């Protein structure tokens, strides 16, 4: 059955990750931390970095870990390569971007493995970017444009568009999510259509996104987007949304620890709102 995170074998990059040992993180000023039994650390699972990590996807992992730790919340990280079982007991699963062939391989292996689907059934948070976004849907376009089955975790279907969308994107997030304007970079040729229950993550201001004026999609605790940049680096409120789904309401971060990220965010948004 499931392989526990504690026993999880680390990939060929070795246990080079990222800092702090797992320890119960007392929330600042006694704020609630990860309600429920067991460890208080948030368990981050990076799915298949050997196949799906093409556009700095490590940044999303590092930023989730950083923003949790800055609040005194412990983080435990598993990088799961495509020759390993996907653990089912993670809290947040990250899937990144990839080229066409690796994307097909990743989808095939994830379907055979079943771990991600089981985690989704448990209500784990899944955050998927670009190729990963397409994979968690029902279908996507393969290397020759042919339909390839995805994991059907999210009711979306993607196919090959006419031309590649490459460049900076800005998009206004569904107000229900309470996330600030998105800034990111897209590089894909996908067109994505949503089923009736799936909502678009955002409305595109500049860029291509899903191809119909929307960008990304969400349902329950699953979020998909075409944006890298990496997107959680440039959009800390989106990172915090994912963390809050696991840990509950989050205390504020010391502004000195956020200056640079907010400056970067401001620069990227300003660059897009300049003379068009």
């Amino acid at each position: 059955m499931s392989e526990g995170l504690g026993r999880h074998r680390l990939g060929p990059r070795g246990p080079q990750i990222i800092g702090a040992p797992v320890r119960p993180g007392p929330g600042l000023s006694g704020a609630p931390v990860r309600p429920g039994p067991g460890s208080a650390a948030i368990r981050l699972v990076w799915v298949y970095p050997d196949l799906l990590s093409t556009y700095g996807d490590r940044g999303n992992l590092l930023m989730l870990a950083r923003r949790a730790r800055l609040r005194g919340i412990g983080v435990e990280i598993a990088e799961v390569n495509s020759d390993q079982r996907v653990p089912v007991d993670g809290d947040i699963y990250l899937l990144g971007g990839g080229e066409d062939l690796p994307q097909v391989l990743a989808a095939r292996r994830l379907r055979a493995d079943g771990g991600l689907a089981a985690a989704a059934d448990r209500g784990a948070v899944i955050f998927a970017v670009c190729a990963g976004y397409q994979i968690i849907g029902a279908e996507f376009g393969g290397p020759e444009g042919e339909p390839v089955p995805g994991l059907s975790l999210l009711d979306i279907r993607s196919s090959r568009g006419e031309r590649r969308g490459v460049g900076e994107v800005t998009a206004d997030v569904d107000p229900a999510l309470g996330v600030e304007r998105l800034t990111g970079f897209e590089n894909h040729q996908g067109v994505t259509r949503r089923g009736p229950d799936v909502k678009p993550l955002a409305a595109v201001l500049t860029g291509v996104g899903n191809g119909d004026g929307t960008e990304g999609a969400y349902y329950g605790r699953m979020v998909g987007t075409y944006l890298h940049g990496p997107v959680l680096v440039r959009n800390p409120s989106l990172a915090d949304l994912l963390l809050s789904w696991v840990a509950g309401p989050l205390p504020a971060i010391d502004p000195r620890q956020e200056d640079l990220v907010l400056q970067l965010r401001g620069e990227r948004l300003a660059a897009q709102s300049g003379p068009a």
Partner: protein
Amino acid sequence: MSTSSPPSRRFSLPLRARLATTVGGAAGRASRLAGRGDGSVIGGVIGLRLKPDLLSLLARGRQVILVTGTNGKTTTTRLITAALGTLGQQIASNAFGANMDAGLVAALAKAPDASLAVLEVDEKYMPAMLEATAARVVVLLNLSRDQMDRAAEIWMLARRWRAALAAAPNGRVIANADDPLVAWAAGKARQVTWVAAGQRWHDDSWCCPNCGAHLQRDGEDWYCGECPNRRPPVSWVLAGDEVIDPTGKSWPLDLILPGRANRSNAVVALAVADVFGVGVSQAMGAVQQVRSVAGRYTQIERRGCALRLLLAKNPAGWLEALDVLAPPPAPVLLAVNAQVPDGRDTSWLWDVDYRRLRGRQVLVTGERKTDLAVRLEADEVAFRIVGGVDEAVDAAHSPSMEVIANYTAFQQIRTVLGRTD
């Protein structure tokens, strides 16, 4: 080369090709005089417009060596040129990295009497340039992610290389057996010299390019557990600071150029020289003497500080550049831009592991210094943001400083420092 030189290859070209190279050459001179670039491309562009098959015509009758790969093209081209220079023949080469068709045309047109041509080629253009030049030797160095917003996907590139090399009727491939994508790309070529040139960056070759299974690695060796694809047997080996030639003899690689990546480039150059009958002892002396390549690795004095400039354009290049940094306390200036030649997307910064800079004096500049600063902050590397190279020199108070910059940031720093050569 002037048209008054003795019986020249140019006169064996058809009239329109002669006109095309002459007009192109004049445009190149005009471009240099106007101070716009080194003039190597504009002449080729005009020549090609007049005569689209100009490259084939110019390559005809010459022994052409094409050098391609994500990193090391310009340096390896230079090292091969140095090694073959010991033959005493004239060699045509695009030594300053103009590596698409117009750059190749310009390099050949400039040296009409050269029977040898050492040409670096952009990865995407290699198949077309191979067909146009009927190259005698194709050198494949490495393949990794690079400016993904405008470059082809690398698995796709490897497929195109493989098809082009399988279709090439003659000629030899000299390929890095330690890079699984390169080895697969060369796997159907008729004649291959395999070089164990090393691979520092593994993040684009965790999986088998043939079947997609997770590759197994065992020290230097790699193999696929699910299909027959594996590291081919090698005849040249880079082993630390030495090269082992096909006879098993070890030679110290005492290069002026720094770093593992350049030792790797040098071994490849020695293997190429061998194809042309230049033995290791003869080639080595020339290869060792190469000091600076198109401004890279140059030491420049600035206000009492000796700056060493390292160019790094992509994650694999940054990894190699971080490897060759002088040890602390030498401060490090990092400069990142995101203009079109750099790639507009800075996501790649997150593919580089900066943690080894912890505890060093680090300065950050460039048009995307904030992106870089956020990246360093996440890796818990302390740094200072500066407005440019002079501010860095003033802030560092050090007799020397290491500079790593990506493409346009590197050119900007060279311009500030008054180097345009």
